[in-house]
């Protein structure tokens, strides 16, 4: 039996905790969910004030079924993050209607914890952390207040108690976070959420890359062992596009040619990448990746590093690249044919130009240079806002009419001219450059660094990277997009870069975000294994992980138990008496002599009347003494408190 006032207090706590946990979910859900939640919280409070009983069981059951149907009706399913969390909220509302006993309050708080965790599925960024801390704090306080027997604790004290409880559980949380075995693969992976995929695409049409260049979003971060290569060598390889239909470039439906030999020669580049989720299997890497840490990842025949599944969560991996390796010393006839094919009767002026130039330059190298020279010498303009290319021959339109384009225009036109000249060529998309944060030595590569370039195949040299954009706008490659574009073009970050304070703040934030990504979000099986290896395990697997976990938890708990036993050991009785005698001496000095038969309370009454200025201290010391001497389970802490009180007691 809980009395009504107490009941109302408990409900108040519960309503507050649930409101905080549910609040970030509601804007994503249809309005009826919010209205239902408000109505249920309101009804339950009113019921407590008026002393109403719970609705009939049958009515509650019908309402729960109706709620379920409403969720299915809204989302078409109860699977997936959106529908699942909506169902959770609706069932929480239903539970509120029958919350009368302790057990119900407990269930409500567990739902609250689930809601808090569900928020992580949407927003795993560092911004969520303060919200999580506050919400967990509030829910735990509510849990304590609602399920404890006896009257509730004053709110500030309860909040303090829970804060210290949460802090105390931090070491255990860290151990579990670091060592609980994580299964690679889809077990932990979240179901895909529909909606816009931002980032690179597997089709390149004029305008598709420069749409990205306005996005400030982080694509991935990288940190190099040793100095980072200069910007001009930082070509992060993404999808390689072979098939040209006259306007757009795409990946081949299948790559039928022989599996690739991993080139391993020349200087190495070692680096770690923390890749943001892209819903694509592409793992960005510098040319040419030779070794990598992510299990299951493989190299495609055109040197793109690919994961087995689309990347749905922040993923960390390390790569060793061999930039000077010879790629594709010999290519098959099929590959050669594919990389020479051009759609007939498309872009005739380009084909004519190629024929003319090829006539003047018989050597392959001379021809490549001649085409590049044309981009440099003719008045081509690199711009973020190229005019639209109309008609069925966009390459012709760009080369001869508009002459204004972004990287994909140049890459596309260059590859067409190469193929027309009989040189196998393909378009490579990916990212170029990246910004080094001096605070943590991490390189941040953003969507605005998206880029397209070309590769041509030359006998004996294999596939050679040629970036026509570099010929037109060398600053784009050497520095950044903002430096390459005229001031009239809006480029993310340009305004910011003009203010040093903002630059510094931005770098700080970037470093923090990167640390969060690397150590919290991308902390997966690979990092766990690496941690164990650094602890001296030769060949760690999940078994050793479990063993280390078990031992760590046992050691921690044993330590806590030992500390608790020591801290709360019963104080020696004579020690208490000695302290009390000191108190009596000090009272006697001020003329308050204890009669032998006087108990502590009687003496305190008399002493308070005699020394009203010290009434508070006398009361506290007496309370402490009574607790130590006469009450059960007095602790060492109380003794320390009495000592402290006595130090301050100098009447």
């Amino acid at each position, binding site marked *: *039996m*809980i*009395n009504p006032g*107490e009941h109302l207090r408990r409900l108040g706590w519960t309503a507050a905790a649930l409101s905080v946990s549910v609040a970030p979910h509601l804007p994503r859900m249809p309005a009826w969910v919010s209205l239902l939640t408000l109505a249920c919280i309101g009804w339950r409070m009113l019921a407590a004030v008026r002393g109403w009983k719970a609705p009939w069981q049958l009515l509650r059951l019908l309402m729960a079924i109706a709620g379920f149907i409403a969720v299915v009706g809204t989302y078409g399913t109860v699977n997936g993050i959106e529908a699942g969390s909506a169902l959770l909220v609706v069932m929480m509302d239903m539970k509120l209607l029958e919350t009368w006993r302790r057990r119900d309050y407990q269930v409500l708080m567990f739902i609250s914890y689930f809601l808090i965790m569900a928020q992580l599925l949407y927003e795993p960024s560092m911004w969520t952390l303060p919200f999580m801390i506050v919400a967990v704090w509030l829910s735990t306080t509510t849990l304590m207040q609602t399920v404890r*027997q*006896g*009257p509730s604790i004053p709110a500030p004290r309860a909040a303090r108690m829970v804060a210290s409880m949460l802090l105390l559980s931090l070491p255990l949380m860290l151990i579990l976070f670091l060592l609980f075995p994580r299964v690679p693969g889809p077990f932990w992976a979240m179901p895909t959420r529909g909606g816009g995929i931002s980032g690179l695409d597997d089709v390149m049409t004029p305008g598709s890359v420069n749409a990205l260049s306005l996005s400030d979003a982080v694509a991935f971060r990288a940190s190099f062992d040793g100095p980072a290569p200069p910007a001009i060598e930082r070509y992060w390889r993404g999808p390689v596009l072979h098939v040209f239909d006259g306007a757009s470039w795409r990946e081949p439906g299948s790559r039928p040619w022989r599996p690739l030999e991993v080139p391993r020669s020349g200087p190495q580049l070692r680096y770690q990448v923390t890749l943001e989720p892209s819903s694509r299997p592409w793992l960005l890497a510098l040319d040419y990746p030779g070794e990598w840490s992510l299990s299951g990842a493989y190299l495609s025949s055109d040197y793109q590093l690919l994961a087995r599944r689309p990347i749905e969560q922040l993923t960390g991996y390390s790569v060793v690249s061999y930039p000077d390796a010879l790629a594709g010393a010999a290519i098959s006839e099929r590959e050669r044919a594919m990389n020479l094919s051009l759609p007939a009767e498309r872009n005739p002026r380009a084909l004519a130009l190629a024929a003319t130039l090829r006539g003047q330059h018989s050597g392959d190298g001379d021809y490549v240079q001649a085409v590049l020279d044309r981009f440099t010498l003719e008045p081509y303009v690199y711009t973020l806002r190229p005019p639209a290319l109309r008609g069925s021959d966009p390459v012709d339109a760009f080369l001869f009419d508009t002459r204004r384009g972004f990287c994909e225009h140049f890459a596309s036109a260059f590859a067409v001219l190469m193929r027309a000249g009989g040189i196998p060529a393909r378009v490579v998309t990916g990212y170029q450059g990246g910004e080094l944060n001096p605070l943590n030595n991490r390189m941040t590569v953003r969507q605005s660094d998206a880029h397209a370039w070309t590769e041509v195949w030359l006998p004996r040299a294999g596939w050679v990277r040629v970036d026509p954009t570099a010929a037109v706008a060398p600053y784009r490659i050497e520095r950044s997009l903002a430096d390459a574009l005229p001031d009239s073009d809006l480029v993310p970050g340009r305004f910011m870069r003009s203010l040093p304070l903002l630059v510094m703040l931005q770098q700080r934030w970037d470093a923090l975000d990167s640390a969060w990504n690397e150590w919290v979000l991308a902390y997966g099986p690979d990092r766990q294994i690496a941690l164990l290896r650094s602890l001296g395990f030769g060949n760690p697997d999940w078994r050793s992980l479990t063993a280390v976990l078990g031992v760590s938890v046992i050691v921690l708990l044993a330590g806590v138990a030992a500390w608790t036993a020591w801290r709360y050991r019963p104080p020696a*009785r004579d020690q208490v008496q000695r302290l009390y005698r000191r108190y009596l001496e000090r009272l006697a000095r001020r003329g308050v002599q204890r009669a*032998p*038969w*006087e*108990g*502590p*309370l*009687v003496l305190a009454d008399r002493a308070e009347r005699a020394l009203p200025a010290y009434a508070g201290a006398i009361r506290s010391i007496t309370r402490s003494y*009574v607790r130590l*001497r*006469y*009450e*059960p389970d007095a602790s060492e802490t109380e003794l320390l408190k009495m000592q402290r009180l006595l130090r301050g007691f100098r009447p």
Partner: protein
Amino acid sequence: MHSTDVKTLRSAELHDDLQLVDRALQDLNQIILGKAIQVRLSMACLLAGGHLLIEDIPGVGKTTLAHALARILGLSYQRIQFTSDLLPADITGVSVYDRERSTFRFHPGPVFSQLVLADEVNRATPKTQSALLEAMEEGQVSADGETLPLPRPFFVVATQNPTYQIGTFPLPESQLDRFLMRIRIGYPGPALERELLKGQDRRSLLLATEPVTNVDTLLRLQEHVTEVFTSEALLDYVQALVRHTREDADYEVGLSPRAALSLVHAAQAWAMLHRRKAVLPEDIQAVLPAVVGHRLKPRQELTLQDAEALGERLLEAVPVP
């Protein structure tokens, strides 16, 4: 059913129960004017599950106190006026021949109540007295070979006129020991007596009062009394007190172990009334005169007043360790 109630008793419920007790004490003090200590001692005695002996001259409100306790605590109540011709069966009940069923049937006596007021217990003969005292001790009544349990809680308030009055049989020491406490009420102060004279008749005031607690509450609280903590330090003090009565020349007989146990038990109830979770020396001191007054036999024949002063003297003689 009661045992599970007691098991689930926790601090919140205890808090509520004690609040009811506070209200009961308030109401009692409205009826018994100016005797807060005696009222509180009676309550402690009841909560400790002991019986109470009120010893004083007629007309100071002994009966009113007993009746008020029963009414405010919601207990069934019977008053037995002890006279020199009262027989044991008048208390415990009689077996009467049932003509229809051709058997003897037991008619329970007035002792089958939760609160029994034995008024002027020292006016009856020792035989009758012992019938009541046996019932108090055993918690049951044996009649015609049958044993009938008395109700729970079972609380006897006996009143006694001071022994120097004519026509009385004073209770022997062994019988006095059955009472956890003996209190006296004493004359009211002049101002309160004036109020008494001007005010309403006490009995009609009493009949107008509503019960504040019920039997379940009392049983829960009685159970909790035994859980009030007694520390080693406190038991040191109790033993020092007891040892003093056994060694000092002032006393003919010292306090028995049962008396020491009663002292602790009464002090636990007192501490609970003050919402303490442990017994303090002050609790012992508060209940000691009432608990030991009728158990201590002073060396010389002393009056009642002196006997209670004996308790005070004992307290002053033994330092709190």
